[in-house]
């Protein structure tokens, strides 16, 4: 009977297992139940032991009957059979790196056990670039996330799931549009130029990791300090994100299938006026200005609610994601193959995204040789909304709130079928028309190939050659139908633009790795040479006047337009690193990389980037033994290093001649081709360099159930590469890249993790805290001020960056209340007694004359706050009870300001657009207790100018994730022949607590650093709340 059981279970294939359980095991159970239970004391127990993390079987785990010497080990499939000594026997299961578990037999024949990884015990390995290092030997500041932590949250983007997980790593959504990706900032802004970190996937540099499938990810390691990142030299100043995709493990094939189904809904709608309300406000504003009322608004009471353009463009949108993977292998070869598909509708009508991806990763060993490769191919297609049809509305999201609700969505008589604005109102395009009459798609194909061969020349010396290739091709299409939308937007022909671009990176790396222990001395050394070349090509073609329904360039009868360009760059580097540890107590890491880049002129082409780090495992010292009862882990790390940044355009060191700057000449009025120098070159530009010092402390308390780390760092970036604004009088069309100044950053990061259990209730609480301050030490001309963040189509700048201050501080004319009486206006006088605001009347905003010169202008701007939070945090709670698990995550910021650009428009009653409901509370002689100025169409006092009036508190706390899962009991698993089955429900972006009035306080958006904290709501794509459910199956 024992044999029968074992054989049945072992050989059973998934497809037949259900059958087996029904047919084969039924008689056995019948026999059992026929006999006396007590009589069969020595009934064997069988089962499978799997890892909780990935559902994989654990071969070689030890199973002992508690209090006896009876024990066995699991086989290669994680299965065991044991004969308990009594009916109330308890089995103790132990496995290295996992938490021990005890299970009462209680008469069961089959006991499947899931072991939970013990993070503190496991000799965790951290990826550090061109190799790995044991966590205990690590000296640098490295953030580490396991793929298993990136559970599906109903979002299709990997980077989003990193938000708040690692101290010092800020993740912001680039927008709510499907496929938008995220922007990652590591340890704040170390450059004013390009703050994007270096992304490396399986050893190959990529532009973005947004196209990866979170199910494919084994781990993400973020190299934060100079010591850890220095091996990437010139590209590492913004930090390095290393993604390792999953590899197979020796053993039976493991299949995983998962699917997720979610629903997204607009998180927040802005409150704007109904048609009747709008007409009343408009009439009041025209009356106040002494100009005739708009004909449109003649009879407010007859207008009713009008059109709700927000309701017209938003929808509940579905997201679905399916993944399948198989992995396995033997001692000589391992494989992991996966495929996935995600399809997502956007919450804005007619926007969507879908992506297919396939990944193959294998590794083969023979003798001293090892070969391996990663092949990753993804293809996605995105349908975007129009970016705006000119005019003043912005994109459809902006137009939806600005469109006067009197106007109808449809007009069957108009070309194209849509209604729109008419009369003397601001040019805002009907957003529904924009979404339906312009079709913008882009298709991206991403190929990543990485192949390596490794030879163990000596047991301790390995040579590795690595070839990498990435190809990212994009095909973009913009089809623009003919239309007449209201009287302001006319487009008489169908037009088509198609564009193709290709980015190719070729990488060649030769490395030698040496690792050997000499007694208590452990040495790991690396030397390498790398070469990479990057090519970019772009072509576009456009034609006008296509027949209805035809979307091919050749069919166009109108004018053709073509374009194209190309760039290339290359980087040649040598690198070396030594990691030395003595007795796991004293640790030293030293590395150097020398890079040569084509982006600089020959005089400044090479840069050398050294780093050194020391670590001390205090808890491994003898003298520490006395303390060990209280404090189990204590490690001190000190690192220093220099990193570079070369993220500027190509060929900046040479002044080029721009062509096609044309004019007309002659009786025939024909094109006169023009070309000249239009911008300045920077022949002397050199590397931007960042020096970082880092102090870190790792600790573990309460038997390492409470672990944490604290890091303090100080960074100094010199020779910042920046397009420094030069005066318009210099005559250039763009600002030249120069080595512009020095920037300081220092910060504190804290990570804590506490795991515990109460009976069957296991839980884990974790949190991160980051506080970073930046300061500009010097900039450009010395007195250089760089202004940025123009919040609306017509607003002045909102931020200033200058020596002595933080990057991109808000710098605004200050709103100091409302004039209640004419006497107040008249008595607000400057030094010579003249009225400071001569055009003001009661109900207008009083502005602060900071320089006391009797006029309000840009010289009265004052520091008004920072777009950077005083601190950011994230905290989460994972728990499991019986077969249930729950996962909660919060994240937030504190102390940052946001300039609400869209509110500036929506409260500007001088613009004939729809307004925010805030204007219903405008000042009137009867309504004086308000901060909203009087409604006036001409705005002679410039109430709506860019000022502190529209600056808001940007702090928020977001309940980002709530997930509840249920795993089918292992006793059921065996009957249906699977390893694990989990179902879950999840909510993403559940609720955000904030005083901020715009769509969402984490603005994201990939703009200039000088625009940070400015909410461009008129061209945004708001974030959605997502509720989803899914199944994860492993067999």
């Amino acid at each position: 009977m024992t044999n029968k059981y074992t054989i049945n279970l072992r050989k059973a294939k998934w497809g037949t297992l259900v059958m087996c359980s029904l047919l084969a095991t039924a008689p056995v159970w019948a026999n059992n139940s026929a006999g006396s239970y007590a009589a069969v004391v020595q009934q064997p127990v069988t089962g499978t032991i799997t890892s909780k993390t990935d559902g994989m079987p654990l071969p070689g785990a030890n199973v002992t009957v508690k209090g006896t010497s009876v024990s066995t080990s699991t086989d290669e499939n994680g299965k065991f059979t044991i004969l308990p000594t009594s009916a109330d026997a308890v089995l103790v299961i132990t496995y290295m790196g996992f938490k021990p578990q005890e299970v009462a037999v209680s008469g069961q024949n089959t006991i499947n056990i899931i072991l939970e990884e013990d993070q503190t015990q496991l000799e965790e390995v951290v990826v550090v670039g061109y190799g790995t290092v044991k966590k205990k030997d690590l000296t640098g500041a490295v953030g580490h996330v396991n793929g298993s932590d990136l559970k599906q949250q109903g979002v299709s983007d990997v980077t989003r799931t990193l938000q708040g997980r690692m101290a010092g790593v800020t993740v912001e959504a680039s927008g709510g549009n499907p496929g938008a990706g995220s922007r990652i900032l590591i340890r704040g802004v170390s450059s004013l130029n390009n703050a994007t970190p270096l992304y490396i996937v399986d050893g190959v540099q990529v532009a973005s990791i947004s196209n990866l499938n979170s199910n494919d990810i084994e781990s993400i390691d973020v190299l934060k300090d100079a010591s850890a990142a220095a091996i990437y030299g010139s590209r590492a100043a913004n930090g390095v994100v290393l993604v390792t995709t999953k590899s197979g493990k020796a053993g039976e094939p493991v299949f995983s299938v998962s699917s997720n189904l979610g629903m997204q809904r607009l998180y927040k709608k802005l409150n704007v006026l109904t048609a009747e309300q709008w007409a009343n406000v408009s009439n009041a504003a025209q009356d106040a200005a002494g100009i005739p009322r708009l004909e449109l608004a003649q009879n407010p009471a007859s207008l009713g609610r009008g059109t709700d353009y927000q309701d017209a463009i938003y929808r509940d949108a579905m997201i679905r994601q399916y993944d399948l993977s198989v992995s396995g292998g033997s001692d000589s070869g391992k494989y992991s193959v996966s495929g996935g598909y995600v399809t997502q509708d956007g919450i804005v009508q007619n926007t969507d995204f879908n992506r297919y991806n396939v990944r193959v990763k294998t590794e083969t060993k023979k003798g001293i040789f090892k070969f391996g490769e990663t092949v990753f191919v993804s293809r996605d297609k995105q349908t975007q909304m129009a970016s705006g049809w000119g005019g003043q509305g912005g994109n459809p999201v902006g137009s939806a709130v600005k469109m006067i609700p009197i106007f109808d969505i449809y007009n069957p008589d108009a070309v194209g079928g849509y209604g729109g604005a008419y009369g003397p109102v601001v040019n805002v395009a009907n957003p529904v028309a924009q979404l339906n009459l312009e079709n913008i798609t882009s298709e991206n194909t991403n190929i990543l190939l990485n192949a390596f061969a490794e030879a163990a020349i000596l047991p301790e010396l390995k040579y590795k050659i690595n070839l990498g290739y990435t190809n990212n091709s994009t095909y973009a299409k913009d089809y623009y139908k003919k239309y007449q939308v209201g009287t302001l937007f006319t487009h008489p022909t169908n037009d088509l633009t198609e564009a193709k671009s290709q980015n190719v990176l070729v990488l060649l790396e030769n490395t030698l790795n040496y690792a050997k222990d000499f007694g208590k001395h452990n040495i790991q050394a690396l030397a390498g040479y790398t070469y990479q070349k990057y090519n970019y090509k772009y072509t576009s073609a456009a034609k006008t006047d296509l027949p209805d329904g035809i979307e091919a360039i050749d069919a166009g009868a109108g004018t053709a337009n073509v374009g194209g360009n190309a760039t290339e760059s290359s980087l040649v580097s040598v690198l070396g690193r030594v990691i030395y540890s003595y007795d796991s107590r004293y640790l030293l890491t030293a590395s150097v990389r020398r890079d040569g880049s084509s982006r600089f002129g020959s005089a400044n082409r090479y840069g050398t980037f050294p780093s050194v780090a020391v670590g001390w495992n205090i808890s491994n010292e003898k003298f520490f033994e006395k303390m060990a009862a209280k404090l189990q882990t204590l490690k001190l790390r000190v690192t220093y290093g220099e990193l570079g940044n070369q993220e500027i355009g190509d060929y900046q060191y040479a002044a080029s001649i721009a062509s096609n700057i044309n004019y007309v000449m002659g009786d025939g009025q024909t094109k006169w081709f023009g070309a000249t120098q239009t911008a300045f070159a920077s022949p002397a530009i050199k590397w931007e360099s960042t020096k970082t010092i880092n102090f870190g402390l790792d600790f573990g308390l309460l038997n390492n159930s409470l672990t944490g780390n604290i890091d303090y760092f100080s960074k100094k970036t010199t020779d910042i590469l920046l397009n420094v604004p030069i005066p318009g009088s210099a005559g250039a069309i763009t600002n030249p890249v120069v080595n512009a100044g020095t920037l300081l950053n220092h910060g504190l990061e804290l990570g804590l993790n506490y795991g515990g259990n109460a009976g069957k209730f296991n839980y884990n609480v974790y949190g991160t805290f980051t506080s970073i301050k930046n300061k500009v030490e010097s900039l450009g001309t010395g007195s250089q001020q760089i202004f940025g963040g123009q919040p609306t189509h017509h607003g002045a700048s909102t931020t200033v960056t200058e020596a002595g201050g933080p990057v991109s501080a808000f710098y605004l004319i200050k709103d100091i209340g409302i004039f209640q009486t004419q006497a107040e206006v008249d008595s607000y006088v400057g030094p010579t007694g003249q009225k400071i605001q001569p055009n003001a009347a009661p109900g207008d905003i009083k502005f602060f004359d900071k320089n006391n010169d009797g006029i309000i202008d840009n010289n009265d701007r004052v520091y008004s706050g920072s777009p950077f939070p005083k601190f950011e945090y994230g905290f989460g709670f994972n728990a499991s009870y019986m077969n249930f698990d729950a996962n909660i995550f919060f994240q937030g910021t504190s102390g940052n300001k946001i300039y609400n650009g869209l509110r500036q428009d929506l409260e500007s009653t001088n613009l004939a657009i729809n307004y925010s409901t805030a204007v219903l509370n405008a000042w009137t002689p009867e309504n004086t207790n308000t901060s909203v100025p009087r409604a006036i169409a001409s705005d002679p006092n410039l109430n709506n100018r860019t000022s502190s009036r529209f600056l808001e508190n940007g702090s928020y706390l977001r309940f980002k994730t709530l997930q509840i899962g249920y795993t089918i009991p292992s006793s059921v698993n065996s009957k249906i022949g699977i390893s694990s089955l989990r179902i879950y429900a999840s909510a993403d972006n559940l609720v955000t607590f904030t005083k901020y009035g715009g769509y969402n306080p984490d603005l994201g958006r990939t703009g200039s650093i000088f625009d940070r904290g400015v909410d461009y709501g008129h061209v945004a794509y708001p974030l959605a709340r997502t509720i989803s459910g899914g199944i994860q199956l492993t067999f």
Partner: protein
Amino acid sequence: MKKIYILFGMTLAFASCNTDVLELTNPNGITTDTYWRNENDVNQAMAATYGLFKNVDGGYWGVRGTELTNGRGDDFFIRNDVSYLYQLATYTNTADNGAATSLWNIAYRAIFRANQTIENVPNVPGLSDELKTRYIAEAKFLRAVNYFNLVINFGDAPLILRVPVDKNDYYYPKSPEADVWTQVKQDLTEAAAGLPVEWPSASKGRATKGAAIGYLGKAHLYTGDWASAQATLQQLTTTPFSYSLTANFGDNFSQNTENNSESVFEIQLADVGGTNPWGGENASESLGVTTAQEFAPQEVSGWFEVSFTDKLFNAFQQERTVSGDLDPRMYATMAWNYPGSTFYNKPFSDFTLLFGYSTLIKKYQNYTQTNELVGSSGAVNYTSSNNERAMRYADVLLMLAEAVTQQGNPAQAYTYVNAVRQRANLAVLPAGYTKDQMMAEIRHQRMLEFAREGFRFYDLRRWGLLQSEISNSDKQGRENFNTSQHSYFPTPQSEVDSNPNIN
């Protein structure tokens, strides 16, 4: 360990022999090192300098430039759509004003390009001295016109006469208004000496000797040097010049009668090149302007951004022609409601007057079409091909009249004023006008003759009449006008922000 060092050394050696892989050249275009080799390069650079006159953002004769130069006049209204235009038209503009900033920046771009030509032409191989002189003269004309446009709008301005060598040359202080005028006159004098009286027909539209003299005369007039203005402008009334007023006033604003006998300097515009009038400086840019589109009424797909005030409407009706009709210039300048009035081939009654003003703008509009939006490329066409006349002979005549009158010789002004009046079918002036009477007549004629041509505001300033004429107008925002604040634009905020030496 020794092995490691050896291998590391080998790698380094391998690396060092590959440094040439870092020498990459820009595949998109040549660099300044290899430019200026021949006459073709010079001509290309010249086109790139002229091209800025029509630039959509801030070219002086592009749409924003036309809105800016007219918008502050007592005869012009800009509606509240594009905020910065509305603000400058209602005198609530600040130093951030987008239109004024662009005007400044684009003028300086042209100056930078002209300076390149002036500096590089002497070294172009194979170019005759005669041609070098001519090209330098042409570049100096372009530089002078841009400085002229800057100085009348901003007053003091940086005077930059050479190409920056390094980054220290980017930060010029402002020069006093008088110094800018001196430079304008010097450049125009040199330009007049080196430019041809006429270009071959294939090159028509480029700056001529007459254009340089015309601008020089204007510069003298603007600076109150009446005698020099008279002496300069009089040259244009005799050989080798053959300027004359067109018989039909409207020919000066029609696409079919461009570069005519009255044209002293004309901005060349055509719907050729690409199709996108907002495309910026590249192959897709359409080489016309969108002004007509922005000024047209909504019934013909226009954006009705601007209107004439009724002050102008009334001014036109002050005097009838010798045949008792209204001034023919009125019919060419505006559309209004009179029996049989049509516009864009539609009865005038089909149009709605939106702002309480009585007229619609007709000058430079493509009103012979049925819709402003139908253009020559047959596709989306926001582009007007109608050349903007920067200086007409009528302007020369009225400037001459002013120059002589201001010198106390109103009698000498009669020929010039009467020429303009007679073309408009008005009676010749009665004899015996005093200086004040003649100036009043010149002011009146300039208002009618050049409506929408961008001179009114600057004329009023020269005459010291900004405050009074704006105040007595029916222009929206007139109450905000303040001579000390609004006679010139403040130096653009972006210039102040980025230029520590701007003072």
